[in-house]
């Protein structure tokens, strides 16, 4: 997949509003593979909704969203499964990890599906992000910041053309934010993929190709 295009897209919940001044909603916007995008937004402007639409989890919008020119409203469950395994990776704002499993198992559950990374790669990321000692700890016993780093490692355990990172560093300190930025960027460059980061203020310091106000 090389492009994601939005044509006059608007969440249905905003349909009654007349004060929409957004770089994304009701505009023609194109995201291209290999670029870095930042979408800045205040709370309640539909940032997570946008991510849900792009990952096929929600369809409550008006207008069109196209992947490589194909309207995503025509995609079937099997198409979405294939996209989520090979083209679209997502760091969810609410993380969507499994508290019953350990940090390592949370990452494994994804890598077993894609067989994308070696154990060594994953161990190295755990070390770099300072959670190597939490590897076998149940996720429920980790802080939100630690869980956020596990979610980022999990999102990198697959091939992707686009990585959607919904407030990926909201609970990380400056140093961890820098390390996360380096790891994601390195992986995205290696795959020639695009990264779309959303933020409500605190964000990774990257040379973004384009910034949008939502």
């Amino acid at each position: 997949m090389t492009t994601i295009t939005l044509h006059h897209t608007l969440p249905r919940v905003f349909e009654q509003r007349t004060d929409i001044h957004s770089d994304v909603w009701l505009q023609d916007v194109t995201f291209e593979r290999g670029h870095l995008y930042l979408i800045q937004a205040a709370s309640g402007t539909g940032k997570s909704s946008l991510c849900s639409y792009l990952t096929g989890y929600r369809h409550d919008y008006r207008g069109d969203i196209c992947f490589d020119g194909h309207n995503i409203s025509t995609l079937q469950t099997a198409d979405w499964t294939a996209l989520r395994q090979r083209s679209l990776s997502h760091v969810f704002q609410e993380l969507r990890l499994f508290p019953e499993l350990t940090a390592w198992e949370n990452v494994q559950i994804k890598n077993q599906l894609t067989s994308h990374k070696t154990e060594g790669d994953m161990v190295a990321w755990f070390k770099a992000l300072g959670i190597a000692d939490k590897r076998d700890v149940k996720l429920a016993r980790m802080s939100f910041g630690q869980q956020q780093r596990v979610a980022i490692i999990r999102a990198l355990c697959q091939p992707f053309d686009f990585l959607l990172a919904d407030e990926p560093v909201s609970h990380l300190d400056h140093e961890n934010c820098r390390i996360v930025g380096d790891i994601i960027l390195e992986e995205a460059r290696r795959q020639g993929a695009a990264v779309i980061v959303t933020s409500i203020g605190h964000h990774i310091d990257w040379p973004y190709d384009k910034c949008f106000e939502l």
Partner: protein
Amino acid sequence: MRLIFKLLRQHVSIGQLMGFFLANLLGMLIVLLSVQFYQDIIPAFSGEDGIIKNTYMILSKRIAAVSALNGEAQTFTEADIRELEQQGFTRRVGTFTAAQYQVYASLYMGGVGMGTDMFFESVPDAFVDVKWPTVPEGEVPIVLPRSYLTLYNFGFAQTKNLPKLSEGVISMIQLDFRLRGEDGVEQQLKGRVVGFSTRLNTVLVPESFIRQSNAALAPHAMTEPTRLIVEVKNPADDAIAKYIQQHGYELEDNSLEAGRATYFLKIITAVVMAVGILISALSFYILMLSIFLLVQKNAEKLQNLILIGYSPARTSLPYQLLTIGLNALVLLFSIILLFWTRHFYLEQLWQMFPTLSEGSTIPAILMGLALFLLVSLLNIFAIRHKINSLCNN
């Protein structure tokens, strides 16, 4: 897959699954037992070792008062016979042919003479349970019903202080017959009783003799048979009773009882099986409710798995395997219990019918497999459908 199982086994209720297991086991066992018991008991009604061995039936048309007064013929037409021959239960059909002339029989024994009017009938030789001996020219062999001899020996002779007669003695008595046909044509013949039939309740002579004598003495008489002898494949076949009932025919003896008993047995089996299937259906409902509750409790996990790239098929698999495993256990246990129970009732049956052969267990096992497949397939589709609905949030 291990991690998926670890994740999705959360909220599995052992109590609910045990409830399903026991209910389904009971339902399945009742179904299998009813099939197996039917298989085991049916040889007691039919087959070579059965209590009913009489495969010959003698049919006549019911004589109603009105038709008798009208002079309506109670005879079988060619079409009646052909229809009967085409029935699945029929092996072959023979007709009773009556002599179309008058017969007067007399005998002289110790200087005392006795005489009586009588009649002759014949059936095809293959239906006669006595082999016709070759007799000299001008003599006719006769077969009498065994019941006549019994009637004489234990009824008539006993009360009149007459000597009892054995078959051997009777066969030595020479009989004289005078046959009187159309236009007063007469024929004199000698005859001898050559045997006694338990099957045929008439005065029998060879079919060839009846044909020749009818041709000679009553060439213009053309009558249809009033009685038929039918050899059936299985006297316990309930189709015979239905056919006879529908056509208003009558049987000479009570050989229909086996068919009626079989029919009754079939109804009982069907009712018991229906109860078993109902219990199975209810237990299936319990399982589906239990699994749906499980899916609902784990809905968030299932959605998360789907959002990180797992297919609905793969996320359904643990629950599908769980239900298939449970169903397989139910099948296994019900087959074990079936054989265990069967062991007890077979002992009881053998006391009543010592020569009874065991029925095949294959139909019951096939029935079990069919139920297992049906329930498992329904489970698989229902679980998949439920998990698919989570994808389309």
